[in-house]
């Protein structure tokens, strides 16, 4: 269909209550689909199978909320704000099924999936304990092999085509043409999905798309749903639209160290807010939202201090 606009509530409601398979597009503290993750938690989706190339705040929240059954990721952090406390603790405790890749090896699985090839041969990361664990655990997706051309050792990584991918971007039109500014670490992940859901800060006209087609990183053909959620990545940043909120991230990097603190934070900001607008007003307030607006040349807020006011 031409019109792919859906509301956040509606598109999340469509997911199975248990066991949805979702690849998330965030990178540490930028373009993380936070609004989507919060709505998954509000709608009490459980037993999720998650993928994220660089583990980010969204995946950490979902693990902390107990919504995740299995997570495959390439390592991650909250950059200098702190660690992925909920993910790290669950690995230490063996609480969930967590499978660690390197950023590029998991990217290659999406790359193969996006391209429609069955697998991709690579040398990364041969010799590591990462690959040792994957060869033991991910036997249906990671195997050791040889190239028939040079007879050298390679890892064969099976193509990954997750049921859903969710990325947050600056703009899309109602047909699903997606516009992003800045780096596109999540492009192959997005293109590999059976159903790609894009949350965007703003829906723009197709006329806007046609005036700068070189900014369309994903053509409508590959998009399943477009969800307009202004500040949908907050408190992480969306290049040229808004900066990360250093105060909110500092707070999160503190509460995510202990489950109890996290639970309180989750209740206050996610479970007790009915939607992303309430989340925004409670965590930031309109004044802060205006303060983190990006300067169009620099692409981030120039007034503030990147380390936060605390």
């Amino acid at each position, binding site marked *: 269909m031409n019109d792919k606009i859906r509301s956040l509530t509606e598109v999340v409601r469509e997911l199975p209550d248990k066991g949805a398979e979702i690849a998330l597009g965030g*990178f*540490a*503290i*930028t373009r993380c689909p936070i609004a989507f993750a919060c709505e998954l938690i509000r709608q009490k989706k459980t037993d999720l199978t998650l993928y994220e*190339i*660089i*583990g980010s705040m969204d995946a950490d929240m979902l693990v902390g909320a107990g919504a995740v059954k299995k997570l495959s*990721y*390439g*390592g*991650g*952090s909250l*950059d*200098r*704000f702190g*660690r992925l406390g909920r*993910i*790290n*603790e669950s*690995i*230490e405790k063996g609480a969930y099924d967590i499978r*660690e*890749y*390197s*950023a*590029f*090896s998991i*990217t*290659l699985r999406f*790359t193969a999936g996006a391209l429609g090839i069955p697998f991709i041969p*690579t*040398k*990364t*990361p*041969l*010799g*590591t*304990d*990462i690959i040792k664990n994957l060869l033991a655990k991910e036997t249906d997706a990671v195997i050791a092999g040889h190239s028939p051309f040079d007879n*050298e*050792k*390679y890892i064969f990584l099976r193509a990954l085509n997750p049921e859903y991918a969710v990325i947050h971007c600056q703009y899309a039109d109602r047909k699903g043409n997606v516009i992003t500014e*800045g*780096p*596109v*670490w*999540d*492009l*192959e992940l997005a293109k590999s999905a059976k159903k790609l859901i894009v949350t965007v800060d703003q829906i723009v006209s197709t006329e806007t798309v046609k005036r700068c087609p070189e900014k369309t990183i994903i053509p409508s053909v590959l998009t399943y749903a477009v969800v307009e959620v202004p500040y949908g990545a907050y408190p*992480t*940043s969306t*290049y*040229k639209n808004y900066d990360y909120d*250093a105060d909110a991230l500092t707070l999160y990097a503190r509460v995510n160290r202990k489950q109890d603190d996290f639970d309180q934070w989750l209740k206050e900001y996610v479970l007790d807010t009915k939607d992303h607008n309430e989340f925004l007003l409670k965590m930031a307030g309109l004044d802060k939202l205006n303060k983190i607006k990006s300067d169009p040349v*620099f*692409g*981030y807020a*120039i007034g503030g201090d*990147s*380390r936060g006011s605390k």
Partner: protein
Amino acid sequence: MAANRFSTNELMAVTASRLLQDGQNIVVGLGLPQVATLLAKDTHAPNLNIIYEIGVVNAEAVDPGVGLADPRLWYRSEHFTGFVGTLGQILQKGQVDVGFLGALQIDKFGNLNSTLVEEEGRMRHFTGSGGAADIATYAKNIFVIAKHEKRKIVEAVDFITTTGCLQGYETRKEAGLPVCRSITVITNLCVFGLKAGSNILEVKSLHPGVSAESVIENTGFAVDIPADVHITGEPDEKELNLLRTKIDPARMYIK
């Protein structure tokens, strides 16, 4: 340890900087590695290509950022791409000269660990690989900046996140990995490089004022210090000036 004219971090940055050659392609993250790279670019290596794995090439930040995901680091980039563009079409294609890494642990074969570290009798999980494992697989040369403590520079890492020379000798090659020409580890006490043949880290130079004994004492493996070991060269005024006034004026990293 260092003379008062410069801090140890300044010495480390300058040492790394001088090892970079003009025209090289470098994958680097935040912190001292980036400081060293920018210093090289401002002195003898104006044509370095600086690649951030997130998909940014040759940016020129004017504000300090908190990590690769901070748009401050993307300012004045010449190219936006993603992991496929950086770690694939540049790194995996074999065009990265230097991968500049950090780690929680490093062992005598140059293997790094940023995943699982034993602390107080239990395994703690940290950042994991990100692109580090990929960089260590494919970069022609690996630079590491590390803190010199017995529990950080060890006989064998608790978890191999990124490969150095595995178990030394030809084991890296036997594992099917591409050739790694050199591993250079710059600590606050000395500079390590690989010993030919065994591929075990040996001290290439001691920082000014640092004794061989103090290196031995603070290293978790039996370290080889040749009798004729060099003394690490001191920063010059121009380098110190650039570090303090242009590259890290807030002294976030060179303190």
